[in-house]
């Protein structure tokens, strides 16, 4: 049987393409968390006129599939317009790698999700949202389902870390069941903000911790 990874996965794992950071990116997004063992961050440089992805870089904390799927996703996206890149599916990424072991499919989902979220962030910030629906509690909740509670490895909605969401006049207030002194408090605050701040009509995100 041998090693459960295709040659292509191993090749991208050993020599990942487009690794690193982009300083002052036009958009970025992080998916996953170190708590669940997989985390990927994607940075984009987008041509303002053509809306083409000029440069894309990724960072990964994760297993071989995580690195390989992020690498192939950046290859697939580079040079495409954001509308084209949005349509890349995890299946395409996995196929381009010659398949993935079933238990590792979520790695491909993560990488492709990070690309999509980064593009969505860009669209929000550049007035490109076609149906400009105002941000509501539901939208915030949907986005927060991608943030992982570092204590449990579950998302912050499922783990009930997020207790209340309030949206009013562009100010999103998120009440969390954690004390401000908790070792992960800073982490949680910045991840929640990173996830909500890009939304087009959000002016400010306030994270409210428990009183100790």
């Amino acid at each position, binding site marked *: 049987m041998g090693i459960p990874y295709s040659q292509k996965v191993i090749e991208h*794992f050993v020599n*990942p393409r487009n*690794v690193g950071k982009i300083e002052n990116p036009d958009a970025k997004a992080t998916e996953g968390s170190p708590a669940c*063992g997989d*985390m*990927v961050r994607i940075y984009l440089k987008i041509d303002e006129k053509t809306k083409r992805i000029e440069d894309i870089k990724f960072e990964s*904390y994760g297993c071989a599939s995580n690195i390989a799927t992020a690498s192939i996703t950046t290859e697939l996206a580079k040079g495409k317009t954001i509308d084209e890149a949005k349509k890349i599916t995890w299946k395409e990424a996995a196929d381009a790698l010659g398949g993935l072991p079933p238990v590792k499919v979520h790695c491909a989902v993560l990488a492709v999700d990070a690309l999509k979220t980064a593009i969505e962030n860009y669209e929000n910030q550049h007035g490109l949202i076609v149906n400009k629906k105002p941000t509501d509690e539901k939208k915030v909740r949907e986005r927060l389902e991608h943030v992982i509670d570092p204590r449990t*490895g579950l998302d912050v909605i499922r783990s009930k870390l997020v207790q209340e969401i309030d949206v009013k006049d562009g100010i999103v207030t998120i009440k969390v069941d954690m004390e401000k002194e908790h070792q992960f408090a800073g982490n949680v605050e910045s991840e929640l903000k990173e996830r909500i701040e890009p939304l087009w009509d959000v002016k400010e995100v306030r994270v409210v911790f428990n009183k100790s």
Partner: protein
Amino acid sequence: MNYVYLDNGASTRVDPIVLKEMIKYMDEVYGVASSQFSHQPGIMARDSLEKAREIIKAGLNIREGELVFTSGGTEANNMAIKGVAFKSEKRRKILVSGVEHYSVLHSARSLETHGFEVITIPVDGDGVIDLEWLEKNIDDNTLLVSVQHSNHEVGTVQPIEEIVKFAKRVGAIVHTDAAYSFGWIPIDVEKLGVDLLTITGHKIHGPKGIGGLYIKKGTPIKKWMDGGYNEFDMRGGTENIPGAVGMAKAFELMTEEEVERVRSMRDYLKEKLLSIEDTHLNGSEKNRHPANLNVTFDYIEGESVVLHLDMRGIGVITGSACFSRSLEPSHILMAMGKTHEHAHGSVRYSFGRFNKKEELDYVFEQTEVVVRKLREMSPLKGGK
């Protein structure tokens, strides 16, 4: 360079001396170990089995009739825990530590459906059980306490004699899984004071498929496997004589000098690896198995480390979720109160007698390169 195998905590290469010895018991002395009134081949087989038993008994200070051969450590753990439980009429409480091998944890948990209460003994950050907790929680309903002698993943050695002290006060039985300690750490069952002790053959360059359970005389335990009257009528089934002979031979080869040689190799690599920035030792520094090294490299994930090292000809394992069949991080590191991240970044280097000092500089250099490479692409490096 030849492949550098550093997963001896999982299993070891059979020593050629052991192998040579074993073959004789497959192609020359192949009878079954039957009674003294049997034919010559049967008597020869029985004598060789008993000779193997003698060697191990002498090494562990076990008395006549107190060592039963099994198919390995897992069977011995099943036998000890379930055998004691199914013999018990009154007591219903079983205490096990959270860092036990699955064969202990799952054996204990399987008894919950039979009316037993299984309680986990907490451990500290090094994996050492909380003796104060044990003293408070052990009572006259406690049937059995099962705590491993040393941990196969992080190497921590447990204070078994202290556990026995508390258990004796309330009349509880003590089992210790010494599968990883056997041959590596001196064991005297009388001194330890335990009632049951598990050993295995394949972590000391002996064969797989052989192990044993020490059962102190008078310990109430149900016969494990029905069959003939083999093994003092405790376990039916034709005895694995090549296995027993191999295990005994391997045990003899685990001399003090050999263990010290391995320990010094381990210490050498330990110093080197801990010189890498943001690297932490897992398990007890002081009370530690001589052949175990387990470290966490911050900011990176272990499966990537393992794969990269494998491609460079080095075999190690990790406690990361991405590496496990269950996609759960190491239950041992989690029981020790470590974060998921800490478990994901853990890598175990476990030594054996066939490792060479010359290999270790290569192992260190390659590890350093791989850790640096992975940290360079990690979003966690550099704080946040």
